[in-house]
């Protein structure tokens, strides 16, 4: 065990929580407000990554600039998916929603395969992708730092929207009581539409980040999706602020194990899911 790497491990872990929070926040909205378990959320990441790639290839757009286009595009895609299918299964059992969104995911993934092929792609020129600042012997990466800041802003912003705006109050109202909200005159369907589009928009932002860090492929969303689900559940459904803490816990643990244990990086997923499992079980027993 090499303790000299400990400071770097802590910094890397804290910063990595940014990306985890970023990919989780949209999913939290979908599950928390609409109550939809969206199995196609990972494909929204994938579409976001590919759109950023395409904007770079076609127009030379930097991914940061692409954010301005990809986010609304994903919102539109999300809205269209909501209007054409999701709204019909809102009151259906969870399992029906899972099958529906799983089907949507397969469609998106294989459309991407037709359009972009299966080979990993590269957004070739991202000037800040390899940028790191040395602070007291520890390296701080520009991309992880950026993801961290963006996700903090998004989580805080979303929390504020939910807490302090009429739209947010409407979202919380329908989240808590679907029938009641309908009775007091809220247009439930419109609130859901906005929430789902927003969820897709947030996934699009995460997707652009993934496209910067990794190679866009039709299956690029998969690794993040399982983890995003787990983080949302660890935070507790509907608990947007809890995402920060949940993401920080697992990201830090992953980084520490990856650094301090031999072959530790290969244990990342084991550590991640072991924490999720233990916390969920422990919490359920404590409550009772």
């Amino acid at each position, binding site marked *: 065990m090499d303790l000299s790497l400990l400071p770097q491990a802590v910094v890397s872990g804290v910063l990595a929580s940014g990306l985890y929070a970023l990919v989780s926040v949209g999913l939290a909205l979908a599950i928390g407000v609409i109550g939809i378990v969206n199995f196609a959320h990972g494909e929204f990441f994938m579409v976001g990554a590919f759109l950023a790639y395409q904007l770079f290839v076609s127009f030379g757009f930097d991914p940061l600039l692409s954010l301005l286009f990809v986010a609304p595009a994903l919102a539109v895609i999300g809205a269209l998916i909501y209007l054409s299918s999701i709204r019909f299964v809102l009151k259906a059992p969870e399992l029906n929603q899972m099958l529906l969104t799983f089907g949507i995911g397969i469609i998106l993934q294989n459309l991407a395969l037709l359009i972009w*092929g299966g*080979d990993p792609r590269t957004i070739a020129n991202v000037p800040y992708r390899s940028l790191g600042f040395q602070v007291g012997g520890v390296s701080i990466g520009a991309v992880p730092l950026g993801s961290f800041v963006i996700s903090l802003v998004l989580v805080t912003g979303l929390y504020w929207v939910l807490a302090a705006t009429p739209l947010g109050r409407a979202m919380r109202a329908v989240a808590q009581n679907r029938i009641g909200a309908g009775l007091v005159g809220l247009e439930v369907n419109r609130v859901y539409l906005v929430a789902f589009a927003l969820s897709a928009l947030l996934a699009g932002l995460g997707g652009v980040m993934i496209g910067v*860090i990794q190679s866009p492929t039709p299956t690029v969303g998969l690794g993040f999706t399982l983890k995003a689900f787990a983080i949302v559940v660890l935070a507790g459904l509907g608990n947007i602020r809890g995402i920060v803490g949940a993401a920080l816990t697992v990201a830090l643990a992953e980084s520490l194990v990856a650094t301090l244990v031999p072959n530790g990086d290969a244990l990342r997923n084991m550590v991640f899911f072991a924490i999720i499992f233990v916390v969920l079980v422990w919490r359920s027993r404590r409550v009772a």
Partner: protein
Amino acid sequence: MKRIIATLVVALFAIAMAQGVTIGVLSPLTGGAAGTGQAQKAGFELALAEINAAGGVLGQPLKIVIEDTKADAATGVAAFEKLMTEDNVEFIAGGYSSGVTLALVESFRTFQPVVSWIGGAVSGVGIDGFDGIEELLGAEPWFFHVHPWDYQNTEASTSFMASTGVKSVALLHEDSAFGGPGAIAAAGLLQNAGMSVPLVEAFKSTLTGGTGDFRATIAKAAASGADALFWIGYDSDVVPLTSQIRELKYDPQYIFGAPPGWPSEFDAAPEAQCVAGLIGYLPNLPNPEAKTFLDSYVAMHGKAPDNYMAALAYAQLWSYADAINAAGSTDQDAVIAALESGTFKSPMGEWSFKPSVIALHQGFGSEMWNVFQFQNGVREIVWPLARATAPLQSCR
């Protein structure tokens, strides 16, 4: 009833035969390995067009039937049995994924068609208690293996590392069946060649559930003080790995990787500078077919091949066409003899089937491998020296 159907089947079979030779292809066209499958498909399509433009096989146009395996074992077996019993092919091409290949062993042995197999590089040689593809199928007279075996990949990698004159190597490898078993062997070979290996470290690839944060692993490599970094992972790991090496200001003398392919457009990324990699096919290889292949590939598919699997598939189909024409019939023994004795052209130069450790018919060996280095956006061949287009540059 049975007799009528039997007669019908025979009649259909006869019609199929009269219409020329059909080769059955198994390839992962969808799912996580779709990149490889699509590359193979593109290579087959190009070869098919050229073969038929050159007069086809036995005077008839050659046909191929491509079946998707999804890189899934059960799907692969069903697809193979469809080719054998519905399409009635006598020759099998394509091939990828050790899991699928292991599942096909029994079925291959039952039907014993001529199987020319690109992928499934896990030989099993040197792994105690595990029977790999070479151990299970290599001695079969009808089995032809095109892609180098895992130990041949390792051999090429270590020879290159030894040629650089570095004293120590940090070895990072992904932890699944692709990078896991080979890493130990690679470390041993490096040490035999006189280099020290202060770090052998597994990481979770982006292809097998990882999220592409390799900082912890890279920090360990940096701390190991090794002169060079050698990593075995997938093509989707290239971008995160090379960018994070720079982010963490890790500066080994050489950064050398052995993924199965390189991501499209990575050549133009600044992170690519000075990164070296193992590759089967490059357009700037000295043999003239390398450039011809590139040109006709671009003419047909509108872009350069991203993955050397396209060149291997192309070479594989051409070897079948040449061998069947040389045999003068589709008689299995004659075709096997022609495959055994023939020398074939390919984008990688001339090749033939030779014995390997166990296999009777191994196509490309360690000599297929080249090491290229990204030098100012160009993939310069730096090893072996006989094919080099530029000298290897230090990253420092």
